[in-house]
């Protein structure tokens, strides 16, 4: 016994291990409870973030070049497809404007300052992705100086992709919705069926094998079918209303056969991020 403890190497190793465990638990609790990491960590992140441009910017521009070539090849096909859409788009736009102005007017009459669906967008670029199997996290190039705050929702090209989990001055970390750790905030969503009836629920799981989100514990008589659309419902105070999440891919009941469980297929762009939009719910 005495020999073991007199061995300084062992003692230092154990000490280092305990210190590391302490650091881990502190940073996990900071991540769960505080709106920002401590100053020294933010400062370090800013410096590393700026240094990372040396690699990330050339790498991203190479990626752009590859995409440009790809775009050139696809242009003809796309053009034909888009032509068909263009005709309907003007009509939709005009209608959209009319509805928007009517909505504003009604709100003014009802003295509502801002609705559930209003938000301020902050456009950011993805810098790097965390090289880790379980984190599903990436770093964007806008931070608190651009107005990014913790827990804001992040949109990709086609819909909701995640939330901000750490804010530094000039960059921040975004966690994809596929990461559903218990301690994180859950997204409140609604599924709307063809009759216009809605069911509210919470994204509380992710099926890694199929890449589908799970909305569980639904207790309702309203029938939701495959291909019904799912979007955020604006409840809970953080996420704005009406952000597209995906389509219902499967409707089942949970293990006990009492509550409904929905599997949601997200748009394909979840893994192919370049430019993202951080949305700030105005309230």
């Amino acid at each position, binding site marked *: 016994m005495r020999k073991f403890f007199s061995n300084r190497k062992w003692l230092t190793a154990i000490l280092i291990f305990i210190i590391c465990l302490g650091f881990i638990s502190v940073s996990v609790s900071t991540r769960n409870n505080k709106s920002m990491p401590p100053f020294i960590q933010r400062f370090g992140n800013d410096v590393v973030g700026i240094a990372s441009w040396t690699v990330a910017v050339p790498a991203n521009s190479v990626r752009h070049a590859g995409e440009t070539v790809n775009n050139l090849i696809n242009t003809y096909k796309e053009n034909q497809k888009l032509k068909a859409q263009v005709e309907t788009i003007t009509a939709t736009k005009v209608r959209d404007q009319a509805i928007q102005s009517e909505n504003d007017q009604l709100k003014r009459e009802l003295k509502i300052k801002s609705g559930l669906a209003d938000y301020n967008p902050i456009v950011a670029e993805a810098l790097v992705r965390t090289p880790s199997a379980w984190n599903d996290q990436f770093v964007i190039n806008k931070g608190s100086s651009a107005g990014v705050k913790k827990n804001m929702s992040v949109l990709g090209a086609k819909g909701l992709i995640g939330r901000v989990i750490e804010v530094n001055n000039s960059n921040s970390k975004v966690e994809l919705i596929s990461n559903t*750790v218990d301690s994180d905030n859950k997204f409140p969503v609604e599924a709307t069926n063809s009759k216009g009836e809605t069911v509210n629920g919470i994204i509380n799981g992710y099926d890694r094998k199929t890449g589908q989100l799970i909305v569980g514990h639904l207790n309702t008589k309203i029938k939701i079918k495959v291909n019904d659309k799912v979007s955020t419902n604006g409840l809970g105070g953080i996420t704005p209303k009406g952000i597209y999440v995906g389509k219902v891919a499967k409707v089942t009941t949970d293990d006990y056969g009492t509550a409904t469980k929905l599997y949601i297929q997200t748009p394909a762009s979840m893994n192919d991020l370049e430019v993202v939009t951080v949305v700030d719910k105005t309230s």
Partner: protein
Amino acid sequence: MREHQPIRYVFIIGLFISLFLDGSISLIFSHLLYGKYILVPSITFAWLFFGMYFINRTNEHVEVWAAIAGLLFDLFYTGILGVYVIVFPIAIIIGRKLYRFLPMNIVTGLFSFAFNIALINVLAYGLNRLMNATNMAAGYFLMHAVIPTVLFNSVLFLILYVPIGVLFDRIE
């Protein structure tokens, strides 16, 4: 005492570049690397391992640089301090033990590297799981992440072995 040693600068600059390359490659090829099977590039560790493996004449403290790289990794990528800062040096220390124990050639190098990559992934996952920072199931992690990652990084190792060996030899 400390004279001009170009290998030192090359090693440190290369370490930073490989640290950022990991993130950039993960972002750009994320649809390939993070699909059904998860292939995590570990160029940072590969660089540290090559440093431990090839740089013998100068007394470079690779373990210390492994801890620094691990700290930056924690700070910038995961946001959870204390995981890679301890895992990287442990892997390098074990790698050095294996290096002294085994004859030096590409097969034993590959074996030692693959073992270290598996060790890093399992240890880091274990620490995250312990602190409830992930809810990925252990069986899924093993089958869909560890094994593909080890294979993927072994291929990287084989590709980089000769060029980096030559580079370090030339500079030394």
